[in-house]
C-alpha cells in the first residue's frame, strides 16, 4: 500500500516538532527516515499511527485521505507499528498480547486465545519469526519481545510496518537478523518505514532515505549509496567529525578494583555474575554490551545503589562495598546515571538546587543544617556558564531544559567535585550530536586529569570513540576485555555471548 504524508505540521506549545512534512512511502520498499534525536521523527510516526493529531496536513492511503483519531483507525487502515518502547503488557502471554484489541471471542465474550496462538504460529512460519505464543512476555529477552511486536502487527494484516529505532536494544547480530526479516517483509510487498539515527543500518538496509532535521524534511529520495559523512552532515546540518580527539596518556595505578562481584534481582537471579576487573587512573574503560546484560546493575552496585550485591570493591586503598551511596560519592566518585530524567535531576527544582543535590549537607552550602541559598544560587550561575548550559539563569526548573542541557547539568554537578573515579552510564543516549560532542570532550578531559573513567554504552561508535579498554558484558558475565583495535564483528560476537578464549 502506498502511504503519503502531505504537509504534516505538529506543534507542542511553541515548539514545532513537525513543520510541513511531506513524504511518500511506496510498497515493496524500505524507506528510512533518518534524523538525529529530537528531529521530530517519532512525533511524525505517532501522528501517522493516530496517537497524535496533526495541527495541519493530511495522511493519504492509496490515494484516499484518511483521518486517524486513535490507533484503531490506523490499524484498520493496515498500518502496524513497532514502537521503540515495546507496547506489550509484561504479565500477558505472547498470544494474549497479540490478540489484545482484536480478540476473537465465543459466546459471552469468552476469549479464544487458542485462535490467537494459531495466528502467531502461522505468522511465525510465514515470515520466519520464531516465537512461543504461550511464553509470558516479561520472561522473554528484548530481541524476542521485538519479534512479538512485529508478529502483532502482521496478524492484524498490516500492509505498512513502521519500525521506530528498532535496533537500539539489539546486538549487531540481532540487528542483522532483524534487517533480514525486514527485507523479507519488503519482498512480500509490504511498505516498510525504518526510523533511525544510525547511519550504518540506513546504508545497509534502506532502499530510499528521507532526512529530517529540526522538524523539516531537508533531503528527499537520498540514495543509500551516499557516504556516512555526507549523511551525517545532512542530518546534523554541519560538518561532523566522527572521531573524538583523544591524546595518548600513561595510565596510572588502579583506582577501582572489583573482585567477584555478583548482583541479584528480586527473584534471586544473578544479574551480575561473578565479575572482576580494574579501572586505572587516566583510562577510560568502556563497558559494552546490549542493554539488559547487567551493565546497569553493575554500575548501581559500584555506587551502592543496589541492595542485593556481594563481592569486594576497593576504591584506592579503601574498601567500598557495603558503604552507603553517600559514603561512596564522598570518596571521590562521580556518577552520571543512565536515566538522567528519572535519577539524575529533580525536574521541579531549579538548576542551582540540582547542582548541590549531593552536597547540600556540606559546607559552604549549609552550616549546622541551615542552608545558605545565596551561595548555592551563585554556584549554580557559575556552573551553567562554565558548562555552557543553555538556560536563562540558574533559577529555571530543570524540567524545562532539553535533554542535552539536562545532561550538562548532571555533568556539571558531578565533575565540579574533586574526583578519582567517574562513572557515566549511557551518557549520550537520546542526545543531539552537538551535546554528544560536548559530553565526550568532558569525559576525555576527566581522563586527562588522571581520573579513572567507566563509560557504559550500547553504542559501538561511542565505545570506539572513547575507550582505552573495552569490557564486554553478556548475561551478567564478562564476555571479554579487549582493546579498541578489535573489529566490529568480533565485538558484536562478544556482545552476543561468544567468549574470548
Amino acid at each position, binding site marked *: 500500500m502506498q502511504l503519503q504524508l502531505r504537509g504534516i505540521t505538529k506543534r507542542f506549545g511553541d515548539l514545532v516538532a513537525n513543520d510541513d512534512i511531506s513524504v511518500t512511502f511506496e510498497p515493496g520498499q524500505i524507506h528510512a527516515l533518518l534524523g538525529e534525536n529530537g528531529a521530530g521523527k517519532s512525533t511524525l510516526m505517532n501522528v501517522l499511527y493516530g496517537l497524535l493529531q496533526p495541527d495541519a496536513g493530511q495522511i493519504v492511503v492509496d490515494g484516499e485521505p484518511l483521518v486517524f483519531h486513535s490507533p484503531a483507525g490506523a490499524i484498520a487502515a493496515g498500518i502496524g507499528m513497532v514502537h521503540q518502547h515495546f507496547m506489550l503488557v509484561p504479565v500477558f502471554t505472547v498470544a494474549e498480547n497479540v490478540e489484545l484489541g482484536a480478540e476473537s471471542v465465543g459466546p459471552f465474550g469468552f476469549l479464544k486465545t487458542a485462535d490467537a496462538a494459531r495466528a502467531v504460529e502461522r505468522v511465525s512460519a510465514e515470515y520466519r519469526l520464531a516465537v512461543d505464543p504461550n511464553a509470558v512476555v516479561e520472561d522473554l529477552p528484548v530481541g524476542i519481545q521485538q519479534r512479538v511486536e512485529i508478529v502483532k502487527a502482521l496478524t492484524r494484516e498490516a500492509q505498512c510496518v513502521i519500525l521506530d529505532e528498532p535496533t537500539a536494544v539489539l546486538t549487531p547480530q540481532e540487528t542483522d537478523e532483524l534487517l533480514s526479516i525486514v527485507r523479507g517483509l519488503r519482498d512480500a510487498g509490504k511498505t516498510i518505514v525504518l526510523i533511525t539515527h544510525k547511519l550504518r543500518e540506513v546504508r545497509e538496509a534502506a532502499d530510499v532515505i528521507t532526512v529530517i532535521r529540526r522538524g523539516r524534511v531537508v533531503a528527499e529520495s537520498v540514495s543509500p549509496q551516499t557516504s556516512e559523512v555526507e549523511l551525517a552532515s545532512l542530518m546534523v546540518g554541519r560538518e561532523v567529525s566522527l572521531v573524538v580527539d583523544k591524546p595518548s596518556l600513561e595510565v596510572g595505578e588502579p583506582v577501582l578494583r572489583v573482585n567477584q562481584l555478583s548482583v541479584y534481582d528480586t527473584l534471586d537471579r544473578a544479574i551480575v555474575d561473578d565479575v572482576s576487573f580494574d579501572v586505572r587512573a587516566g583510562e577510560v574503560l568502556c563497558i559494552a554490551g546490549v542493554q539488559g546484560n547487567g551493565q546497569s546493575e553493575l554500575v548501581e552496585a559500584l555506587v551502592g*545503589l543496589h541492595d542485593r550485591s556481594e563481592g569486594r570493591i576497593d576504591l584506592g586503598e579503601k574498601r567500598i562495598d557495603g558503604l552507603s551511596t*553517600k559514603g561512596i*560519592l564522598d570518596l571521590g566518585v562521580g556518577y552520571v546515571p543512565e536515566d538522567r530524567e*528519572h535519577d*539524575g535531576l*529533580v525536574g*521541579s527544582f531549579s538548576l542551582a538546587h540540582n547542582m548541590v543535590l549531593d552536597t547540600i549537607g556540606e559546607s559552604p552550602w549549609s552550616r549546622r543544617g541551615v*542552608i545558605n541559598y*545565596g551561595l548555592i544560587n551563585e554556584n549554580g550561575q557559575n556552573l551553567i556558564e562554565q558548562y555552557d548550559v543553555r538556560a536563562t539563569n540558574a*533559577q529555571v526548573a530543570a524540567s524545562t531544559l532539553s535533554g542535552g542541557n539536562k545532561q550538562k547539568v548532571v555533568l556539571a554537578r558531578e565533575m565540579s567535585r574533586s574526583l578519582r573515579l567517574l562513572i557515566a552510564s549511557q551518557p549520550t543516549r537520546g542526545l543531539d550530536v552537538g551535546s554528544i560532542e560536548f559530553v565526550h570532550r568532558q569525559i576525555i578531559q576527566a581522563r586527562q586529569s588522571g581520573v579513572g573513567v567507566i563509560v557504559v554504552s550500547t553504542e559501538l561508535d561511542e565505545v570506539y570513540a572513547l575507550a582505552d579498554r573495552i569490557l564486554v558484558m553478556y548475561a551478567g558475565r564478562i564476555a571479554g576485555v579487549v582493546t579498541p583495535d578489535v573489529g566490529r564483528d568480533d565485538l558484536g560476537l562478544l556482545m552476543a555471548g561468544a567468549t574470548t578464549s
Partner: protein
Amino acid sequence: MSEPSTPSTGLSGSKTEDTLHPGTEPPDSLTGELRRRVLSINLAVTLLAFVLALAIGAVLIAASAPSVIESLGYFFARPFDTFAAVFNSVYSAYSALFQGALLDVNELREGDVSAAFYPLSETFTVSAPLILAGLAVAIPFRAGLFNIGAQGQMAFAAIGGGLVGFGLSLPAGVHLLASLAAAMVFGALWAGLVGLLKAKTGAHEVITTIMLNYIAIYLLGWVLNQDWFQREGRNDPISPILNESATFPLIFGGGLRIHFGILFSIGAVIVVWWMMTKTTTGFRIQTVGANAAAARTAGMNVGRIWIVAMLWAGAMAGLAVSMNVNGTDKVVTAGIVGNIGFDAITVALLGRGSPFGVLAAGLLIGGLRAGGLAMQASTGTPIDIVLVLQALIVLFIAAPALVRAVFRLRGKTADSLTIAKGWGS
C-alpha cells in the same frame, strides 16, 4: 534567589503559593511573572470552589428542610411560599454557620462582649488541633508520603500525654511541657514505625497507616480498661482527670474556652515552615518528595528521610491531641481524637501542603466545625452538612479544570493533585 520549587509529588498546585518560598524572585523574571499569573488563576479557582460547594450545600439544605417540603405540598396554590421557605432555610442555616464561626452579632448588640466573641474563641479552640494534625499530614506530603494515620498517631500519643499528665506530679509549666513531650514522643514512635516499615520493606504507607489507626484505637481502648490508666471507681473507659499543672491555662477565661494551646499550634506552623524552607532536612524532604530516585542517586538516604518526615508528623499529631488532652478535655477518653485525624487530611489538602496554608485551612475548617455546631443548635440543620462542604471544597480545588468548566473560565494548565504513585513503592 529562591527556594526549591515545589515538588511535583507534593501538591503540584502549590507551585503557586509562596508561603514556603519566601525567596525573592527578580520581579522582571519570566518565572516570577508566570508564578503570579498562576497564583491569581488558582486564587480564583479556590474562591469559586467555595462558591460551588456552598451552592450545592444550599441545595441540600433547602431540599431537605421540613418547611420547604411542607410548602411544596401546596406549591401550585402558593408557589411563593416555597421560594420563601427555600431562601429562609438556606439563609438561616448559613448565617448561623458564619455567626457561629466568627461573631455573635446579637450578643454584640446587647453588649456582652465575652458572649459575642464566644464563636471566635470556639473557632480557635477547634482549630488548634486541626492545624497541628494538618501539619502531621502536610509534612509527609512533602516527602511524597500520604499519611492517613494522624488519627492513630493521635490516639497513641494520648496514652503517653495522659499518663504523664495525670500520673506524675511536677511543677506547673514543667509538667505541661513534660506531658506534651510525652505525647509528641508517642506520636512520633507510632508514625516513625510507618516510615521504618516503608524504608525497610517498601510497605505502602497508605495501607500501614490505615491499619495502624485501628490498632492504636483498640490499644487506647484496652489501656482505658487497665487499672493503671482507668479512673478509680469507674467502669467506663475514662482516665483520671489531668493534674492542673499539666493543663493549658485559658487565655481569657469567662466562659471562653480558648487556651494557650493555640499559641503552640501557631508556633509549630512557624517552626515547620522554618524547617522546610531553611534547613537541609527540609531540602532533603522536598527532594525525596519530588524525585526519590534522584535523591537516592545523589546519595540521600531516602528511607531515613521518610522516617524523619514521619517522626515530625507523629510529633505534630502528638501535639495535636494534647490540645484536647491538656486543653479542652483534661482527660483521656476513647473519643479523645474525635475525627481530627481524618479532618487533618482535608486541612492538609486544602492548605496544599504548606505550613501557612495549613494554618489558614485549619482555621477555616475549625470555623466550619464551630459554626456547624451553632447552626445545628439554632436551626436544626444537621452538622453533617459541614462534612459535605468540606469534601466538596477539596474535590473542586483538586480538580481546577472542573471548576473552570463550570464557570466557563479559560486556562488549560493540567494542574491537579498528585501524591500517591500507586501501591508499588
